[in-house]
């Protein structure tokens, strides 16, 4: 009833190929942005800003990066945390060593450094496929973290390898309150997500999908394999690098190389799979799910144990969290292998017919 596209005619190619062709979608998106930019800073508590919304946006960006590589281009990668680390440390070094550099530029340079490392570790993808490639990206993961720990130059000769992010400021305005950090991250992530959506719809995105589906056939019709695959690695690492820089500057404040461990890579991969491979919205949904689930379990399990008067010791609660997390992953993969994005698509399709059943 509400979600009809009857009466919405497109008269130009441009209006037909826009990202949100249906008016209700555009209104919905505008409302969402309004809430995100104005509503949230007004009403959200510091806990929500610092511990939920900022990491949600940052992880969505990292998941977006990995989605380009794994979802669109079909190159399974387990090293995304390493590229985040490169981005964080590179940004720190540019900010530190070049006097007066605007921080946006250091972010971009940090992302480009991550892209360069990504291309380096993407070279094997020209010869190796599938799980072998996944294990090869693990090499990137371990090697990069080792490099950052080993060479004191990266952490400005600190004895422990930890870097403390500098305060970000633009024209004298310092981004040091939760609200300002949130807005900065929101603007960057929204911009890059828009860029990403267009990238996925462009010929680059189509080339990636061709390579994913059958790379021999793609080569036959003239898609340059090396360029396409390396471009996927480069862009994916760029996004992960920016996410890593935001992680260090706007979320944690201090990072060490061990904080970008294999666990984080797996977490991002989960977000991509659960959110939906090959979908931009899926990254946000997946990030929300993976981020909120442990918190949800943290709160609900003691509540349940109190309700049923079961004296569950604290360590068992934590173990149960792990079990529930694992079984929910399996449950999701069984029930909806295309991820949450597919569920959203189904919802929209049902909404078009509502209140009629078919």
């Amino acid at each position, binding site marked *: 009833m509400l979600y009809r596209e009857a009466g919405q005619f497109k008269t130009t190619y441009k209006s037909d190929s826009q990202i949100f062709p249906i008016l209700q979608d555009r209104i919905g998106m505008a409302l969402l942005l309004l809430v995100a930019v104005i509503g949230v800073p007004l009403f959200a508590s510091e806990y929500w800003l610092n511990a939920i919304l900022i*990491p949600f946006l940052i992880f969505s960006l990292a998941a977006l990066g990995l989605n380009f590589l794994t979802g669109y281009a079909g190159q399974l990668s387990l090293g995304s945390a390493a590229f985040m680390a490169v981005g964080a440390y590179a940004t720190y070094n540019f900010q530190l060593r070049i006097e007066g550099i605007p921080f946006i530029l250091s972010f971009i340079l940090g992302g480009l450094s991550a892209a360069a490392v990504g291309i380096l570790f993407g070279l094997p993808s020209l010869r190796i496929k599938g799980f072998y490639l996944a294990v090869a990206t693990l090499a990137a993961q371990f090697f990069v973290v080792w490099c950052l720990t080993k060479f004191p130059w990266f952490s400005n000769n600190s004895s422990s*390898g930890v870097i403390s992010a500098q305060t970000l400021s633009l024209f004298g305005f310092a981004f040091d309150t939760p609200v300002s950090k949130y807005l900065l991250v929101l603007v960057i992530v929204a911009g890059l997500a828009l860029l990403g959506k267009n990238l996925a719809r462009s010929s680059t995105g189509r080339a990636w999908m061709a390579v994913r589906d059958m790379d021999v056939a793609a080569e036959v019709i003239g898609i340059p394999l090396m360029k396409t695959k390396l471009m996927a690695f480069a862009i994916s690492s760029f996004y992960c690098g920016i996410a890593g820089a935001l992680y260090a500057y706007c979320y*944690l404040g201090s990072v060490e190389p061990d*904080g970008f461990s294999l666990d984080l890579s797996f977490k991002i991969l989960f977000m991509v799979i659960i959110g939906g491979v090959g979908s931009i919205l899926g990254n946000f949904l997946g990030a929300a799910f993976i981020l909120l689930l442990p918190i949800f379990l943290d709160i609900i399990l003691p509540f349940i144990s109190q309700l049923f008067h079961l*004296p569950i010791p*604290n360590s068992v609660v*934590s173990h149960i969290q792990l079990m529930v997390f694992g079984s929910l992953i399996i449950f999701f993969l069984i029930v*909806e292998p295309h991820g949450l994005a597919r569920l959203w698509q189904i919802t929209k399709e049902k909404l078009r017919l509502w209140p009629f059943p078919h």
Partner: protein
Amino acid sequence: MKRIKTSILGAFFAVIALLCNTYPLLAQAEDQFIAIPSFRVGPYGQNGQAFYGGFIDYLSYVNIKDGGVNGVKFSWEECETEYNNAKGVECYERLKGKSGISKGTAIHVMSTGISYSILDKTQADKVPLIMMGYGRTDAVDGSVFPYAFPLVTTYQMQASAIVKFLSQKNGGSLAGKKIVYLYHDSAYGKEPIVALEAESKINHFKLTEIPVAHPGNEQGAQWLKIREENPDYVIFWGWGVMNQTALKAAQKVGFPRDKIIGSWWAGSEEDVIPAGDAAKGYMSATWNVSGKSVPVIADIEKVVYGAGKGNFSDKAKIGTVLYNRGVSAAIVTVEATRLAQNKYGKGKPVTGEQMRWAFENLNITDAQLKSLGATGLLPEIKTSCENHEGSGKIKIQQWDGTKWVVISDWIEGNKALIHPLFKASARDYAKEKNITPACLKN
């Protein structure tokens, strides 16, 4: 199947919506709320369980026996960080809002990584971050880090004290000796290198540094190298599985374990028992003794577990090194609370800023420890703005196969050598962050 899907998803998002409305849950207005971001699972879960069990047991003990501090009882809430930095931040943010007054009172996270991540946040939120035996060591300088307290001793002071012990063992001089430093290749393992290199120059011993890649469950190559080097001593900075593996690997190559001396995070029952016979003779640093012969530990068992309010369902961990260490951390927190109340008003909960003042003006004497029944759990601690460490002393203990036996008296690290290193590093940090170093007065 679809119904189940939708209903689970619906329930999930409903609870998230509920979350919005239930925050912040206010603690009882008259309680001193302590935020405890803890870890009880994962590779270090055992260590966390022992430490936080001891910590919480002592708080229950104070509540039951004395009714709190001047009538103000302690309340607390734990949050599982899984030893993960991001989760630690989330736990801290969630817990600090649970009491408007104390903001968590004093935060013990038992993890160097997490303490680095929340250092700036605790400073902005004005609640003291207590890093007893770990964490950011240049926070010794309180003029740059007013809200961070690396109490008792830091890694560098500990390393320096261990060198002093070894020197004492060799008639006062280590000249010409060979010492290998076997360390976990992380921030934790790399911290003391600066101090050890300085010490090796002064004491004229040869220092060889051998790192072990995380997690350290494969050390064959390193120990073959050590056997090749044939040092007089091995200073061991391990954590988690690296500890047992090292002891077993030493046994494998036939290196005598009584020449190995570990840091205090490599010297607990969880580390030596799994190594079995291989651990006999191994030494480690500590600031607290183990065992139930300490009066307050025995009393905790009687009072708290007698009333059925103990944190463990199985009492085997009471009296272990890490349990007692948790008790010692709680003792420091409670005494700081008492000090703060004495200054700012007895009988009501204290704020984070007031606790900060208390931690910066601690003066825990041996007499005070004796009256608490805690002799042997802590050295004397006297803090000030220039010295957030307060002590710098350790003891050495040795594993005899069934228990840890203290084999030395209090040994203080070389403060004249080490503290200037901290000051220099803190000044660099202050320059980077544009902070003017100044001691807070309140």
